Each structure stands twice: as structure tokens, then as C-alpha cells.
């Protein structure tokens, strides 16, 4: 690699002067062999001796985006040539120095244990190993980086133990799950998990994984999956949480819908409200209309920012009736990482821009309230 190879591309070269919270970045541990040392010897042998390389969910696509990003975002490459996002020092430089982000909230995509078949006990062990290492290798070394707990929906008792164990860490701000399609998150059997999250001031972050599907399953083309699966599955899980009364039982429980788009919100609100007026008697435990629940309990990240000019964005904000629902996110270090200064259209009023870029996040994640002073400067 030549010296010029490490020059950052122009789009990410200008640090932001505003207070920015990035609600969706991804940190990567250095492969399963590195994770093995956080497992008991009995579980570690599946990796070190038997060659376990990751959770196979049957994802049928090869999109090329990982390779292209690796070839082009040279300033993101770790010195050891490992995966993008696997080196804390490079992440520090990219996010905090070059992109000017004040606080980044990381979630991991390598251990979607709730998608696993087979032994759920191994999935739970992987979750514990991940949680242990993210605190040790990332959070304890970088106070501007917040982390997310990995939990296993197949093992709710274990999930609660993980929350009780790691929840007190000041930089663990959310429980993260892939947007699963085999379970309804509103199922009452999962309620104790959400109660534990609330006890520890954690939100639930949902982000699609390779096991997330459209209503057609895995369509023929990757582009169909990428365009639709995150939103399809997200809408289904949000409806499940709302109509199964999770937010009536836990009024302060918040869910962050990551990377699933947000321009569908007016449709979603209208559709749920319209059905609720006719069929409220099917879910009499729901005491507020769905759009009110969405406004109070659901937040959505911005990346990948959909085609909106300022007039269209302001109309959308008016239609959803809230300036508090959107949280800026970059999705670093993925191919479609949004540029901090360019993500929102020109002309967004300063007050609204400050909310989306940072203040809404501070109001969403209870543990981030301590940073509120930085946002008002």
C-alpha cells in the first residue's frame, strides 16, 4: 500500500462542528478464533478444533459490497488487514477524528445467535463471550463508544442473566437483536427480557441480519432483499410489540429500528390506526392508538438516507407529527455509510437538525442523558 492509499476520501474528510451521535455503527471482533478465548474450553473446541466459522443462516447472496468497500475505503482498513471495523484505533480515527462524531453506538452483526439452529446452549455461550469481549476490548478502552448486548431469544433466562450482568456497565446502552422472523417479539414469553432491559435503562435495538427475510423469504435478487427485508421485518416486529401490549405494560420501553428506512412511517401509522379503529376489541389491552405508541416509544435511524429534499423531509415530519423520532446513523463501516455533513438535505431548520443529529439520541438512550451538556453547546 502506498502512502497516498491511506488518504481519506473527500467525503469523510471534514469533521463535523455539531454534536453528533451515531446510532448505528458496527464493531467486529477478529474472527471466531479470537472469540474462542472468551468461551469455556468445552465450547471453545468447536471453534479451535472443529472449525466453527460462524452462524450459517442460509443467506443466498454475494453482493460484492464487502469486497468493493475493502478495495476502496482504504482509510478504514485495519493495519493487520483484518475486517473493516475490527480495529479500535482505526475506528477512533475514522469516527471521532475524521467524521467528527461525538458518541457512537455500536452493534455487532457477527453473532446473530437468535437465528441459530441446533444447540441453543452454544448460542448462549457465544452471546456471553461476545458481551465479555466487547466490554474488555472496546468499551473499556474508548469512552465515546457505546455498546450493545448480544442476547439469545432461544434462551430467555440466559438473556436476562446477560442483561443483569452487563446492564450496569455505563457504556452498555442497548440490547441488540437481529430483526428475527421466526419469533414475534411481542410474544409475552419475551416480556421478562424487556423488563430486565428497562430495569437497566437499556433500549432494544433491532437491526436486520442475514437471516432477516421479506414476506417472500429470500427473493431471487439481493437487491430485492436489501430493499425490502429490513423494512418488512421491522414493520412486522413493531406491530407485534405494539399490538401485544408491550408498551402498555412497559410504558418507558424504547425500541430503536435501525437501517430499515423511515419514509414508510406515515403509511405505517395510518395503516395501524385505521385497523385499530375497527379491530380494537381484538387487542383491548392496547390503550393508545398505534401512531401514538410509535411516536412515544419507537425511534428510527436515518441511514441509508432515502431520497428526500428538504420539502419532502419537512412534509414527512409533519405527517408523522414528531421531530423526535429520527436518529442520525452512519452505518460505519459498511459500503453505504452516510456522510455526516451530507446525510440530511440542505435547508433543514437548525433546531430539527440538532435533534436528528444528536439530541434525539440523548433523549432515547437513558444512559446518554449525561452527555446532554455537550449537545447544547
Amino acid at each position, binding site marked *: 500500500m502506498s502512502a497516498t492509499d491511506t488518504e481519506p476520501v473527500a467525503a469523510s474528510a471534514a469533521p463535523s462542528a455539531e454534536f453528533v451521535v451515531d446510532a448505528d455503527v458496527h464493531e467486529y471482533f477478529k474472527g471466531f478464533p479470537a472469540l474462542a478465548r472468551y468461551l469455556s474450553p468445552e465450547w471453545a473446541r468447536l471453534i479451535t478444533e472443529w472449525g466453527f466459522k460462524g452462524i450459517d443462516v442460509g443467506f443466498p447472496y454475494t453482493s460484492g459490497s464487502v469486497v468493493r468497500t475493502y478495495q476502496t475505503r482504504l482509510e478504514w482498513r485495519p493495519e493487520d488487514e483484518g475486517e473493516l471495523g475490527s480495529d479500535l484505533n482505526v475506528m477512533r480515527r475514522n469516527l471521532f477524528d475524521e467524521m467528527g462524531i461525538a458518541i457512537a453506538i455500536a452493534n455487532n452483526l457477527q453473532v446473530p445467535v437468535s437465528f441459530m439452529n441446533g444447540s441453543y446452549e452454544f448460542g448462549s455461550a457465544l452471546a456471553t463471550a461476545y458481551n465479555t469481549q466487547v466490554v474488555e476490548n472496546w468499551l473499556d478502552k474508548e469512552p465515546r463508544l457505546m455498546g450493545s448486548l448480544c442476547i439469545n431469544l432461544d434462551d430467555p433466562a440466559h438473556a436476562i442473566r446477560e442483561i443483569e450482568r452487563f446492564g450496569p456497565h455505563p457504556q452498555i446502552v442497548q440490547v441488540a437483536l437481529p430483526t428475527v422472523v421466526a419469533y414475534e417479539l411481542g410474544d409475552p414469553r419475551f416480556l421478562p427480557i424487556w423488563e430486565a432491559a428497562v430495569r437497566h435503562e437499556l433500549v432494544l435495538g433491532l437491526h436486520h441480519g442475514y437471516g432477516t427475510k421479506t414476506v417472500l423469504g429470500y427473493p431471487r435478487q439481493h437487491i430485492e432483499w436489501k430493499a425490502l427485508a429490513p423494512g418488512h421485518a421491522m414493520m412486522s416486529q413493531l406491530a407485534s410489540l405494539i399490538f401485544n401490549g408491550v408498551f402498555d*405494560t412497559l410504558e418507558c420501553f424504547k425500541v430503536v429500528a435501525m437501517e430499515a428506512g423511515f419514509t414508510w412511517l406515515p403509511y405505517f401509522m395510518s395503516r395501524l390506526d385505521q385497523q385499530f*379503529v375497527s379491530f*380494537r376489541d381484538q387487542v*383491548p*389491552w392496547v390503550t393508545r*392508538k398505534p401512531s401514538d405508541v410509535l411516536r412515544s416509544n419507537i425511534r428510527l435511524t436515518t441511514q441509508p438516507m432515502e431520497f428526500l429534499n428538504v420539502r419532502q423531509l419537512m412534509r414527512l415530519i409533519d405527517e408523522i407529527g414528531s421531530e423526535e423520532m429520527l436518529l442520525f446513523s452512519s452505518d460505519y463501516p459498511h459500503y453505504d455509510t452516510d456522510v455526516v455533513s451530507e446525510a440530511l438535505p440542505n435547508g433543514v431548520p437548525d433546531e430539527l437538525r440538532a435533534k436528528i443529529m444528536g439530541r434525539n439520541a440523548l433523549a432515547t438512550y437513558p444512559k446518554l442523558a449525561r452527555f446532554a451538556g455537550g449537545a447544547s453547546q
Partner: protein
Amino acid sequence: MKHQLFGSDELEPGDVREAQIDGIAIVVVRKRDGSYRALRNRCSHQGGILSRGCLEPMMVSGGVGDYSYSAEREVLRCPLHHWEFDVDTGRSPAYPEKVRVRSYPVTVADGKVWIER
């Protein structure tokens, strides 16, 4: 102004009857406890005739998965899209601040049902 409608023994509890007051379509219901209520007889949605819908106990709940018919509250359900209106208030239990039909005070005196409009 009060308008006399009909004899107070003409409707059984659970019965629904149409009425016209000054050209306004009214629906009068007799609740299970024997009391009367009156609403505008047009759904605020698409004009469904509420008197042709269903008078039902309101579904309430003590928690997720629990279904209970309210002992006191009843709804009139529009025949067109099944929107429900609390007969005590004229408001939709789902969307009370926006979805409503006008309700009218009803009294019983001298063996007659009276409505005030």
C-alpha cells in the same frame, strides 16, 4: 329543547331504534342496565347508519391476553367498517380525540323517553 320520542317501555334492554328530530337522524339505544343513550345515526367515517349495526358490551382487558366484556360500557358498531362508538360519549374507544359522533342527553319522564337537542 326537549323532544318526546316514544314510551319508555317500548324498548327492551339491548334494543336500538331510529328517530328523526328536526330532520336529524338519531339512534336511540337502551343499555343492559335499562338506561337510554342517543347518538347521531350516521357514522363519522363514511356515513354508515349506526342503528343497523350492533350494540355490544365494550371489550376491555385486565392485561395482555385477557378479554372481558365491560359490565357498564357498551358500543354501537357501524355496519360498514365496524368502527365502534361508546354509547355514553359517542367517541371511538380506539381514537377518542378524533373519531366521534354527536351524543345527545336522554331523559325518561312521565313514561316517555325525551331527547334534548
